[in-house]
């Protein structure tokens, strides 16, 4: 059952900008509304993350001069904007709003934020048992890569295939940060950051932002373009579990089956997938947990060009966080690219016959606690 339609999307194209976080969001919102054929006065639901800027959505609601009757500041890391689509659909189905606007903006690159290697201190109770030990985001994902290699014999060369696929796709995206092709050897020879993850196993750091417009199905005929249908969605959190956690099982193991069941489709029906790629290992574990292959078989699955355009499951056709953009919370770009593919607007990187796309956002750190949000999207 379709509760909501994605009517408009926009990705802010600059990777380093003189614009502010608020300007990025306002310009993206205007462009996404143009894409949808709607106006600011039509917006009655608003979604963004905390710190974007301010403690919640208030700063952006004020700047955009909005009058929402539904507001949501869900902040669960990079997957937040994927979860916002799910929440917008629920709000629309519940009669809380009819036109939901979701925005994001960040100036991580121009502000010099070391997204992956900075000290990871959350200001929470648990810091006193974790922050003492030199933890960073990349380190907390590297722990998972090391364990995966130990349990299943996964190799650095297999992880590198994911970076190679994303880079090839970035070469087809005019606004991607890095566009020159790379090889598996290039990844393995790049500097070790936190073993076994090399520099090219890690996402880039950019500025950026974007906007999504999610609407009630009744509005379908008023839109400028055929809308994308939300077929199924799910969210979950996986954490330290009081000290008894299987860290190789991510939140996607919970969200994948639920989202597929809600959509009435299976992994075999998916033409392309947008998988949060903070690091190569994030993609490998997520693909396993979503059911595209068995647990432990991800290393073999990602090779042989399977994840590249022309392969059985092209992923991250925009170049992903590994090569296109990663301002800190990438979830919104996963949705934007999936929508473009489902509309046939992919240009040189279009996946043929793209009828069903999967989006999976990850937020937080695989090595301690993280969120997962899955969407199954269908063409009009």
């Amino acid at each position: 059952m379709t509760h909501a339609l994605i009517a408009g999307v926009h990705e802010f194209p600059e990777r380093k900008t003189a614009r502010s976080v608020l300007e990025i969001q306002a310009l993206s919102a205007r462009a996404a509304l143009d894409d949808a054929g709607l106006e600011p006065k039509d917006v009655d639901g608003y979604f963004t993350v905390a710190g974007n800027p301010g403690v919640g959505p208030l700063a952006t609601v004020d700047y955009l001069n909005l009058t929402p009757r539904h507001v949501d500041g869900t902040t669960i890391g990079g997957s937040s904007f994927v979860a916002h689509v799910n929440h917008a659909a629920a709000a629309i189905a519940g009669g809380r709003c009819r036109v939901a606007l979701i925005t994001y903006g960040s100036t991580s690159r121009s502000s010099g934020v070391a997204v992956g290697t900075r000290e990871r201190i959350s200001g929470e109770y648990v810091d006193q048992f974790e922050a003492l030990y030199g933890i960073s985001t990349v380190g907390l994902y590297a722990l998972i890569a090391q364990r995966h290699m130990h349990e299943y014999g996964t190799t650095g060369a297999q992880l590198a295939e994911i970076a190679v696929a994303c880079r090839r796709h970035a070469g087809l995206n005019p606004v991607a940060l890095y566009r020159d092709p790379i090889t598996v050897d290039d990844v393995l020879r790049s500097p070790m950051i936190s073993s076994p993850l090399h520099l090219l196993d890690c996402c880039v750091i950019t500025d950026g932002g974007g906007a999504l417009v999610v609407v009630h199905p009744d509005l379908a005929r008023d839109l400028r373009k055929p809308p994308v249908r939300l077929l199924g969605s799910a969210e979950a959190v996986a954490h330290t579990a009081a000290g008894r956690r299987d860290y190789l099982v991510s939140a996607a193991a919970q969200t994948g089956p639920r989202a597929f069941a809600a959509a009435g489709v299976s992994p075999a029906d998916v033409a392309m997938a947008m998988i949060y790629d903070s690091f190569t290992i994030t993609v490998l574990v997520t693909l396993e947990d979503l059911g595209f292959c068995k647990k432990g078989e991800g290393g073999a699955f990602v090779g042989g060009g399977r994840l590249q355009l022309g392969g059985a499951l092209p992923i991250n056709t925009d170049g992903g966080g590994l090569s296109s953009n990663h301002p800190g919370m990438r979830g919104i770009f996963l949705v934007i690219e999936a929508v473009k593919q489902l509309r046939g607007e992919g240009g040189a990187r279009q996946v043929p016959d793209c009828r069903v796309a999967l989006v999976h956002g990850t937020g937080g750190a695989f090595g301690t606690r993280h969120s997962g949000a899955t969407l199954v999207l269908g063409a009009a």
Partner: protein
Amino acid sequence: MAGYAKPLPEITDESRPFWEGCRRHEFLVQRCRACGARQHYPRGVCAACWRDDLEWLPSAGRGRIYSFTVTHRTQARGFRDELPYVLAWVELDEGVQVLTNVVGCDPAAVRVGLAVRVTFEDVTPEISIPRFTPVS
């Protein structure tokens, strides 16, 4: 200890018994008197049943490395001057996992499954930080 540049724990009443144990060079693991569950990190309630009837039991301080990473680049305070260093999840024999550093060995010698024991660094008159080192 002057010059300790790494982060220090911000101890609260909720966690004080754990840190007092560390000061005595004892690694304490909580057990719920109501439901019997053991847990780490320590907290004011049982993570299984949410009751606050917990006891603190000394761990033997031995376990095995569940996973690790040798960090070569970081901005983390105090650590960026000590590269490379080892961040690890250690699984104690009592069954709970502990996020920690592995010290006192060549980082290149660290392996998943390696047997380790707790060691304490006295960093201030009040605070001792638990880390793990290979069992020789």
